[in-house]
């Protein structure tokens, strides 16, 4: 079949040489014509039509990072040239993981398959390996918990590694979930408890994965467990140690808007339900055992051992699940919103902790109060349960998201949680005014649009237009914006500004990708094997991604993906075959297999199905 290959919007990269690929392509059987169309976004239909006619092409392969974008043009041209429009084949580099060290060969393989009209996913199936039945789950947020529980409930051993002192992740910090307004803790804590009690789950908190060796199906992982310095088994969380501890630091669990001691429990429902010592701030640890140590004497159960040392744990696992989650973008660098300058400009997570019924204000939404800090001799702002509730609150969407300077991508959850915030404010302070500044309302999920409509009906002022900055006028914060729908410039005096800050991959992802050899996309999220076909698998065999670490997603999607990962893990265990690395397949092998399928199907694999 006379085939023409067109390269659209591909650039030479570190590992990608387009000219070399074009040369290789020209030698493929049936390929009559190869053209590199460069990075131009627009392709003229008439030119293409003439080309197809002139070269009498019967099949067209569009190769590039986003070939689907150009398909309509080629289909039109093919139709005008009188060809079969079913013979437009896409060779997507991005989707098939043609980046990183294997980019060149992968791109070639993808084009080879497309030129024979054989689906790449049908050909590129690496050979299986025998599988160890235990699984390593990295990250114990809702994704890790869900995956671990699904696998453990099937009777298989799971090692759940978490870097903080408790499992639960970000979801444990939330007050309500959208769009149902269920209490987040009511969903999460039972799962946390069952993780803590499960006989098949080996929980490793305060731990990091430092090294992974071996091959798919039989990985060996080194886990560095930092000393907790409190015996988990005997600690009864009485809290006597906290009373005597002299060190105060910002609480990570409360998004740094409240203080905790150096000996602490992140939150009362933490799993494992035991205290731990913050080694970075404990006076005893920092002084090398010379100072303090008062908590040791106070503990009635004698479970504090401040001299405990870190452990290295070696485990053997068959599958690895990545569920490392996300972080908030550092909003301090987006200066125009005055975060860190004006006291009552909060990030979304800070507000989430403020409004949480189990938070330190008891769920009361208040503005910050000023107090004099005797130690630093400076005035500082802090949240007091007796603070003044805000009368006007502005919520600004897309802070750092959909912005070429910070995150080009949409963080996906901000619109909905911002609407949820408006609801919570209206619920707790009925006469407060709430202004939502949005660019586009992305209520994409089941029940989300209805939720958005409901919030609008509750009397929230929803302004189509992004506010560009927050200013202070005589002690009163002012938010200015353009109300595009009503064609007005608006200016609101507000007491509190909540920034719907964009999400970025967790900071440990870079190291993990190095340890595991997993590729990350340009934004830093872990790359899945195939965006549509296998969204939970990765390039590496028997390594899976679940939840936010693969890309921003909400809780229902995270849980669904985690469950899907569990299915993949269990599939390898029950079949006894763990899928190998995709890179273990050589270009030659892929080509030969594609050719076999091509000849077996008479050259019309796709059309037959």
């Amino acid at each position, binding site marked *: 079949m006379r085939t023409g290959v067109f390269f659209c919007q591909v650039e030479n990269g570190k590992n990608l040489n387009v000219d070399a690929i074009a040369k290789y392509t020209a030698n493929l059987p049936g390929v009559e014509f190869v053209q590199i169309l460069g990075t131009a976004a627009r392709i003229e239909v008439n030119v293409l039509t003439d080309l197809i006619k002139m070269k009498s092409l019967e099949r067209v392969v569009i190769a590039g990072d986003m070939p689907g974008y150009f398909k309509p043009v080629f289909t039109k041209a093919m139709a005008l040239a009188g060809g079969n429009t079913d013979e437009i084949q896409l060779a997507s580099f991005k989707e098939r993981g043609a980046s990183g060290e294997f980019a060149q060969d992968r791109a070639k393989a993808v084009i080879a398959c497309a030129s024979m009209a054989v689906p790449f996913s049908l050909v590129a199936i690496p050979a299986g390996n025998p599988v160890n039945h235990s699984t390593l789950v990295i990250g114990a947020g809702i994704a890790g918990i869900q995956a671990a529980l699904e696998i453990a409930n099937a009777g298989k051993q799971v090692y759940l590694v978490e870097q903080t002192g408790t499992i639960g992740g970000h979801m444990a910090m939330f007050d309500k979930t959208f769009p149902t307004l269920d209490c987040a803790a009511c969903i999460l804590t039972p799962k946390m408890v069952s993780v803590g009690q499960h006989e098949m789950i080996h929980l490793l908190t305060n731990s990091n994965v430092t090294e992974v060796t071996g091959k798919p199906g039989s990985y060996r992982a080194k886990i560095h467990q930092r000393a907790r310095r409190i015996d988990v088994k005997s600690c009864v969380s009485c809290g006597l140690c906290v009373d005597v501890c002299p060190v105060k630091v910002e609480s990570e669990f409360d998004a740094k808007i409240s203080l905790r001691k150096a000996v602490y429990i992140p939150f009362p429902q933490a799993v494992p339900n035991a205290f731990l010592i913050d080694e970075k701030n404990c006076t005893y640890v920092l002084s090398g055992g010379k100072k303090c140590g008062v908590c040791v004497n106070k503990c009635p159960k004698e479970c504090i051992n401040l001299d405990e040392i870190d452990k290295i744990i070696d485990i053997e696992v068959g599958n690895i699940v990545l569920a490392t989650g996300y972080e908030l973008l550092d909003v301090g660098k987006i200066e125009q919103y005055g975060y860190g300058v004006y006291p009552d400009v909060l990030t979304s997570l800070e507000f989430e902790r403020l409004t949480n019924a189990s938070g330190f204000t008891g769920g009361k939404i208040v503005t910050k109060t000023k107090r004099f800090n005797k130690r630093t001799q400076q005035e500082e702002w802090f949240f007091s349960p007796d603070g003044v509730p805000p009368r006007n609150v502005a919520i600004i969407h897309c802070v750092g998201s959909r912005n070429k300077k910070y995150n080009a991508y949409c963080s996906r959850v901000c619109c909905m949680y911002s609407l949820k915030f408006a609801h919570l404010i209206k619920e707790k302070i009925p006469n407060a005014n709430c202004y939502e500044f949005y660019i*586009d309302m992305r209520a994409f999920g089941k029940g989300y649009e209805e939720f958005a409509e409901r919030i609008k009906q509750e009397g929230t002022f929803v302004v189509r237009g992004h506010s*560009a*900055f927050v200013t202070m006028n005589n002690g009163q914060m002012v938010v200015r*914006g*353009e109300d*595009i729908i009503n064609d*007005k410039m608006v200016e609101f005096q507000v007491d509190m500004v909540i920034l719907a800050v964009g999400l970025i991959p967790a900071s440990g992802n870079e190291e993990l990708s190095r340890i595991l050899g997993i590729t990350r996309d340009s934004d830093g999220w872990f790359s899945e094997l195939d965006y549509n076909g296998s969204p939970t698998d990765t390039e590496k065999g028997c390594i899976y991604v679940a939840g936010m670490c693969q890309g921003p997603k909400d809780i229902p999607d995270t849980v669904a993906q985690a469950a899907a990962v569990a299915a993949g893990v269990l599939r390898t265990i029950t079949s006894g075959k763990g899928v190998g690395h995709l890179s273990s397949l050589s270009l030659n092998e892929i080509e030969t297999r594609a050719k076999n399928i091509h000849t077996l199907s008479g050259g019309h694999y796709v059309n037959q199905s």
Partner: protein
Amino acid sequence: MSIRVNPRFINDLVLFGAEDVQLCYHCGDCSTVCPHADEVYKFPRKSMRQLQMGLERKIETTLEPWLCYYCGQCSEQCPREAAPGETMMSLRRWLISRYDFTGIAKQFFKSRMTEVITIICFALLTGVFLLYYGYSMGNFHIYDGEGAFLSSSFIHEFDLTLGSLLLIFLAINAFRMWYFTMIKGTKIPVPWWLYLKELYLLPWHFFTQKRYSECESKRDPKIFMPWIIHLGLMLGYVIMLVLVMVFIERLQSGPAIQWQVHIFGYIATIGLVTGTIYFIRSRLNKTYEQYKKSHGTDWVFVVLLFFIVLTGIAQHIFHRTGLYELANITYIAHLMCVVPWLLRMPFSKWAHLVYRPLAMYFAAIRRDAITSRESLLKSNSVSIK
């Protein structure tokens, strides 16, 4: 009323220097940071929208592009890097070409080649004509007074002829601007006395460029330098224009310095020299947002002006130091730059000297008309509706 849409308008505007307008997703950040956007004139987002929709006939009647002085804050903020500031700038260029009834401006903006070749042609023509005239009427070794190579009375007549030609072009273009914006663009009735009431704005904006300084009202730290330099350059230019058009005979007489006239010339020269050097340097170094992208016509504007100033200074020095031959040569070079420059005036960026104050004036009239109508509607809401 239906409105005609030109779907290719954005593509056309690229020739005038516009960036990818389609990038804009209408967050409104640019309008929010703009110190000049208000209830009546909301821009740049609205202009971006009109562009995306291809409302060519609508944009033709708007005054918003002229209300923007390009401080660059919108482009700095833009999350899509769609460069709204540059879009407003290119809209101004496009409007200049729209106001121009001859269509020459459009050709100049669209093709650098046409513009440069025209300039060179006119420069050579001028040079040849002046040499011919000089040799037939005067002596190459005499600069001023009796038997001068180029006598100042001849130059005076020459200048006035050019000046009136320009004035005719400009007046017609300004009239077209008024027709587009105030007749076609202002749908509500405008009482005649509003034209008188706001008349003071014309000289006010012309001589102070107050609005340019207001660009900095929201920025911190404030960058006043472009405004001061621009004002200096403009005032210097106007003083020089008056001197050349009216006092040329005194300006060019005798080797001795005529302080009553020349002092103004020196002051103007300071403004012109600092201005041209500052703008050329800024455009080269891309110091601020507004200097980061330079359309070809911007370069022609500053560089040609710089040559004019340079040759002007040179002929003045040679004249005063008695090097008459050199003075004559530099003077011809000077005029070779000046004539194309003057002839190019109504068709180029230079025309904003006229359009901008006019736009402020019209904008104020339109605003008055709108607000008075709104208050009328409020007080008699039933009877009028």
